[in-house]
């Protein structure tokens, strides 16, 4: 979800810029717009986050706002497609992205929605290096970073002991190449060509090793499978293409 770095030095108060960010936010948040695949994926991945966090923090998964008193860092937040719903569930949310314009779009949309989210355009390593967060999410972002181990380690440093981290990404299988790159980029045109580089995809076992190296305990894994007939996603044991994985930090 983390867009290519596209820095602007223009002051954020510039009127044209604000109009542009509003338009960008509108396009991110249009359910039939360019981010349609992420909107379709959202109910499934947020369902997983919610159930995993509810079980881990011993909260009521059926409540509308179960996560009061907990804070969460969303890394690679884009325009806030995950940060906003997670904030509605009661988490106090901080969210970061490398792209200034994503953050400006996210801020503009959160204001519209009346949500309080601490958005910042910064890389993870620039955040204070202290165990600050009860929960951290890295969704559809691991496959875009140059060094997965270093990236996960930076995130893990900011997780409180007893906290939980959840990542979602693409597996490095031929099936993932066929579906996520050839299918989604070239055939269905869901995503711009070049969105993904198969060589950067991470297998679930590699991700678990990365977690362990960062001092985390791998916990749970689930695949996300698209059903073209129902035009929707569901959780599955099949982690061949899209999958989610959770890990906890020992007390």
């Amino acid at each position, binding site marked *: 979800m983390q867009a290519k770095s596209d820095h602007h030095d223009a002051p954020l108060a510039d009127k044209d810029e604000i109009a542009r960010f509003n338009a960008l936010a509108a396009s991110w948040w249009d359910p039939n717009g360019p981010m349609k695949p992420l909107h379709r994926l959202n109910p499934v991945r947020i369902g997983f986050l919610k159930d995993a966090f509810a079980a881990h923090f011993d909260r009521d998964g059926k409540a509308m706002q179960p996560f009061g008193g907990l804070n969460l860092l969303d890394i690679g937040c884009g325009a806030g497609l995950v940060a906003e719903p997670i904030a509605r*569930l009661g988490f106090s949310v901080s969210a970061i992205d490398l792209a200034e314009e994503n953050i400006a779009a996210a801020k503009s949309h959160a204001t519209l929605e*009346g949500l309080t989210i601490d958005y910042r355009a910064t890389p993870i390593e620039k955040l204070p290096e202290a165990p600050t967060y009860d929960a951290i999410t890295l969704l559809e972002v691991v496959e875009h970073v140059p060094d997965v181990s270093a990236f996960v380690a930076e995130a893990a440093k900011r997780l409180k002991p007893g906290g939980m981290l959840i990542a979602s990404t693409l597996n490095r299988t031929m099936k993932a190449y066929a579906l996520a790159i050839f299918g989604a980029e070239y055939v269905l045109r869901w995503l711009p060509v070049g969105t993904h580089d198969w060589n950067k995809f991470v297998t679930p076992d590699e991700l678990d090793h990365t977690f362990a190296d960062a001092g985390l305990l791998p916990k749970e894994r689930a695949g996300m499978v698209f059903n073209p007939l129902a*035009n929707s996603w569901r959780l599955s044991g099949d982690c061949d293409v899209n999958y989610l994985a959770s890990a906890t930090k020992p007390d």
Partner: protein
Amino acid sequence: MANGGTDRTIIIGGFGAAGASLALALVRGGVEPGAITVFDANPDSDQAPDKPDARILALNAGSRRYLEALGAWEKLADQAYPMRSIAISDTGLEEGIRPRLLDMEPEAEGGPLAHLVALGRLNHVLRGLCRDAGIEVLKGRYSGRTASSTAIEVRIDAETRRARLLVGADGARSAIRTMAGIPMHGWPYGQTAIVATIRHSLPHHGEGAQHFLPSGPFALLPLDEYRSSIVWSERAEKAAEMLAASPAERKRAISARAAGWRGDILEVEAVSSHPLQLALARRFVGERIALVADAAHVVHPLAGQGLNLGFEDCAMLAELVVERLRAGLDPGMPDLLETYQARRRPAAAAMGYAMEGMNRLFSNDSGPLRVMRDAGVGLVNRMPGLKQRLMKAASGQTGLSPRLFRGEAL
């Protein structure tokens, strides 16, 4: 409140049994009552529950479980009459004896086939529960909407309200459906249902009866021991004649059709008539709009399925919306609406066409056709598997039925 609150708002147009039940189902699922608004041009027109009310519904087991979950059943149970079996016959009017063609009885643990409940009382109970729950009920007429990718602005009289989702529960002539430009496909049957309550000299023992007469089906549905509700479908001209007839003539005509199944007919009360139609909305959803119950489909009331289908729509929509809200997500997104439509429209279409087909098959006096349908129904009777499946469908227990219809919590 900074995070949460008005961004979960749902507006329901129509405060009948379907709209009121949906509002309650959402609240039972954990939606704050303050996030729900129901509007209706006549929100206070509850019928006094003890007045004779011939508008009787046959609620199936799924509807009963749904109403139990809403806390409505306990307030209805003392005036919900169980129908334990139904006998079906197929004869010409002149034939005094109506042999049984098909008997439907539920499995031992399944409870009654249906419960007969007066619509006025059902509305009264559901509306009362909504008010008790603190759900806002506005008096006003729908005058249009503007939908965007994040919200829908709903105009009620001169007022504009913002919501995530607008639900059209505003009946067969739904303004919400019409203004969304969603066409209704259907045709009138040329038949009218005459509905009345009769008192009879013999007890019914909880048995219903459906006589398929050439001009249309005639159903006797058991109320308290010596009273039954009748639903008598007739050609429109004949029905008009009956409504204009004297009470004595009416009684004679009804006695001829009941053919002695309940002894003598002592009294006929609360007679009303309803033109029959079959109609199905081309889409059950629009941009940030979902249609439920009669706003989406009108089916022949042959098996009292109309409101059962409507309640099932509401139970399904409530389930999908609550699931979304529990994930902090927008309940008006197109993928949710597509799922709702995919789960409910085929069910309504199938029920509509099945009822229509059955009615056409039976509302006919052609000799060969009668032999064929008698053989057909006899066959169903001798194939328990098939009959059970038919009955399961009629009682709302199919694979994709919503949780509240299966007796599970949201």
